[in-house]
């Protein structure tokens, strides 16, 4: 046993803490999946945060090489399981563009199919942003928004269950259209939901967006300016939160988005709240505003009504010609790209998915340097990652 020390020696005037390595995850509620962060801490300050991914890897890309094009669609459901409709859509869009390279191979998606795709895609966007809003509130410490968001998301899931028979893994959008027509009374239920949901967004805003505690936790935290976002290849609400107006639905329009009137919300500085563009608050707010825009698009569909006709193009076989394609679409979390190489057989030679969450996660390391541990949670929630899509 050491000799008793004089009191002045025990209490150091300038405490120095060793760098400590803490493993955060893979089972951590706020990592939105199984993500392990290796944190290098100096006391409470994060010196470095290294994400370790791959816990949810299911070999999507390699597996696809052994399946035919139709059979891959249910597996895209399992990439971003929060917005599976948009994943189906992104893949089908790529296959359709590849098929269209050969004259007369692909007749085009029927009008009614396009409308249904947009209706379902935007509903799924709302559902996805609702989940991100709810869990973000919960990460920050507000439990109530989570329950509200899940209550309303449940309504969307019930609508999806009615139209395609599943709650999360829809397998609804197919090459050439959608798999089935609306059940009777479906559009009335969508209208009922939208009428109910539109005022709810203001309730959420009063509950969380304008909440002083929430603003304190997120405003001016982990600012990602437009240049950094572009350098990292970040897309979707994270990029728009940085103040850059870039939305594939508008800027590289696909399907029939050009017929609809909607705005692209972007992040901005609000001095009285202490908010600067590109911070966690703005990334969050863009999602809240996007829900309103999605409601606007759905309202336009409800007003014009679905056109009559088939929902799926008559295709003899899904067999794209020899060639390759890179196609991208705007999923709720950013640009979802699919690169497909075909050799003219019913099975692809190579499928590569460009996932928006993966790029968003790559910026985490730079964003989190020098912040507190508690801020890491705020960052992960604000970039809204789904590990199923990062790992694929």
């Amino acid at each position: 046993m050491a000799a008793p020390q004089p009191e002045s020696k025990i209490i150091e005037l300038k405490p120095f803490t060793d760098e400590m390595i803490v493993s955060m995850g893979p089972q951590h509620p706020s990592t939105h999946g199984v993500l392990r962060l290796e944190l290098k801490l100096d006391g409470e300050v994060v010196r470095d945060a290294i994400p370790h991914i791959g816990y949810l890897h299911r070999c999507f890309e390699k597996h696809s090489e052994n399946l035919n094009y139709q059979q891959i669609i249910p597996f895209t459901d399992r990439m971003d399981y929060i917005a599976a409709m948009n994943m189906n859509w992104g893949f089908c869009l790529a296959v359709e563009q590849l098929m269209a390279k050969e004259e007369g191979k692909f007749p085009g998606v029927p009008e009614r199919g396009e409308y249904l795709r947009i209706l379902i895609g935007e509903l799924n966007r709302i559902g996805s942003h609702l989940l991100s809003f709810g869990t973000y509130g919960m990460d920050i410490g507000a439990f109530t928004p989570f329950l509200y968001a899940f209550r309303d998301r449940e309504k969307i899931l019930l609508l999806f269950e009615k139209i395609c028979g599943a709650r999360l893994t829809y397998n609804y959008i197919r090459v050439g259209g959608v798999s089935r027509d609306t059940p009777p009374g479906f559009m009335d239920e969508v209208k009922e939901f939208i009428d109910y949901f539109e005022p709810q967004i203001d309730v959420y805003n009063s509950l969380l967006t304008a909440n002083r505690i929430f603003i304190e936790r997120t405003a001016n935290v982990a600012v990602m300016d437009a240049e950094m976002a572009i350098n990292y290849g970040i897309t979707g609400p994270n990029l728009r939160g940085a103040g850059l107006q870039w939305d594939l639905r508008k800027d590289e329009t696909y399907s029939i988005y050009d017929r609809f009137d909607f705005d692209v919300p972007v992040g901005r500085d609000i001095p009285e709240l202490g908010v600067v563009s590109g911070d966690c608050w703005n990334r969050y707010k863009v999602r809240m505003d996007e829900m309103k825009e999605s409601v606007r698009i759905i309202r336009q569909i409800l007003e014009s009504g679905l056109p009559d006709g088939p929902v799926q193009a008559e295709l003899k076989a899904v067999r794209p010609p020899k060639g390759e394609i890179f196609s991208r679409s705007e999923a709720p979390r950013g640009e979802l790209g699919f690169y497909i190489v075909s050799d003219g057989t019913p099975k692809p030679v190579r499928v590569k998915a460009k996932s928006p969450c993966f790029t968003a996660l790559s910026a985490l390391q730079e964003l989190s340097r020098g912040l507190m541990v508690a801020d890491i949670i705020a960052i992960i929630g604000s970039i809204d990652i789904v590990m199923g899509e990062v790992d694929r």
Partner: protein
Amino acid sequence: MSFWDRLYLPGLIKGMLTTLKHIPKKKFTYQYPEDPRSVEERNDRYRGVHKLPLDPEGNVKCVACFMCATACPADCITIQGGPAPEGWKTKEGYQREKYPEVFEINMLRCIFCGYCVEACPEDAIQMTGITLPQYFRERQTEGEVLGGSRKDFIFDRDMLIDNNDIPEQGLHPNS
């Protein structure tokens, strides 16, 4: 920020008010698992556990054509065809050629995509409105919430035929 803002009281109170408004409203939640959503509430598109429907004479409709097994992306259907027993008639009244001697679906591999139902030319495989946990709760011996071993998840032909008493919630090709 003013002193009043710094107290965070307005934020707390505002949030609390929204919460309080909801207390008298109707409950939205289900008391799962004691009181799950009823099967009848699901519409006929629900993709649950499979069943093998019977023809009017009570014989299994399936003609062992392997279309479903070919369409299945998870490769979970095992079929062994055999000559149909004497006296099994087709719709037109001829002797049927084939029937499945073995028809197994590995529910651990199945991803409930519904391709098998869409592929079947005879409408001889359908999906019921119950999920796998519900199935096990209703069918399995006491004490088992889900299967006890991997074997329990391989549903053979007779189990799938027994599923016919589950309310008609199948996925119909043209509904």
